């Protein structure tokens, strides 16, 4: 993907080279932005998706469809319970859209969010913890 055109300078743009951004870069940035929110999490552990457990410190799974400079994202996310789901997902959508656009220049048109788990913040894993 080509980055947004810089202001025309004295030098020819083609002679300066091109910057390509992989789809996975956008996916990781969007996942990181989502995980920075205190109420959102992803899944960690497991093998080939089997045995994975919900984790507030993990990055949510993000899939990106790029068409030129426009992206459509699908985010699979776990959320804190109880939070107003409509409000927090809308907040998350705005945040991801702004940050991805600011960091990569890609315009995010659509973010589909699927809530895969809901957990209270103080829920323990059932394992003994080292004090």
């Amino acid at each position, binding site marked *: 993907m080509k980055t947004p055109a810089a202001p025309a300078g004295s030098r020819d743009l083609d002679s300066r080279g091109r910057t390509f951004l992989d789809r996975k870069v956008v996916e990781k940035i969007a996942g990181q932005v989502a995980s920075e929110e205190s109420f959102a999490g992803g899944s960690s552990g497991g093998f080939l998706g089997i045995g994975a457990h919900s984790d507030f410190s993990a990055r949510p799974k993000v899939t990106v469809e790029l068409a030129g400079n426009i992206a459509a994202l699908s985010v699979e996310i776990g959320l804190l*319970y*109880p939070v107003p789901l409509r409000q927090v997902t809308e907040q998350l959508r705005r945040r991801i859209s702004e940050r991805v656009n600011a960091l990569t220049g890609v315009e995010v048109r659509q973010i*589909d969010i699927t*809530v895969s*788990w*809901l957990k209270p913040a103080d829920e*323990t894993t059932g394992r003994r913890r080292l*004090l």
Partner: protein
Amino acid sequence: MRQHAGAMNRTWLVILGILALAGGVLILLAASGTLHAMSPATVAAESPVVTGDLHTVFGPASVTAIVLVAGVLMGSLGLLWILAQIPRRNPADRYRLHQDPASGTTLCDASVLASAVENQINTLPGVVGSSALLRGTAMEPDLTMKVTVTNRADIQHVLHSINTRVIPDLSTALETPLRRTGIQLEVSGRNAIAGTTVDTTGTVIY
């Protein structure tokens, strides 16, 4: 937890009742001779109701086919009615929580919300286990819960906790009050085993 075909049963019983009542009134009128007095074209009270040769009426193959199709149709309707008596869970599928689909959709499985409710109920003292089921839409959700408590549990406390914590938390998550809530309580001889550790701070002395 399961739903029955009560409304459909009542509707069809009313329809069948009206038809049976109309048939009974017609027979009474014919037997008393009132029908013949009202309409001379009908048969008199003493004469047979069916006149003429029925073999000629049912002779054509088309009539036989029509009777056959009508019989199969009525039999199928009866079978469907019997099948509708099987109790069903009818859970909600996915709740759509977005307002403007153009900017993206927000989906949450009703089972995900039900699991969160179950986890919350299971932490209440005296609760052995629970299952929750969500029906309806995201704007008008119905919650049905089955809670199993120990035989020494304080049931009033459990119900109070469900009404003041569990249900309001689900309302907060869905941002709408629940339309209907059902709680089924069961008492079990098993002990409530939480199996969880608690966070604590303090000095460990070796």
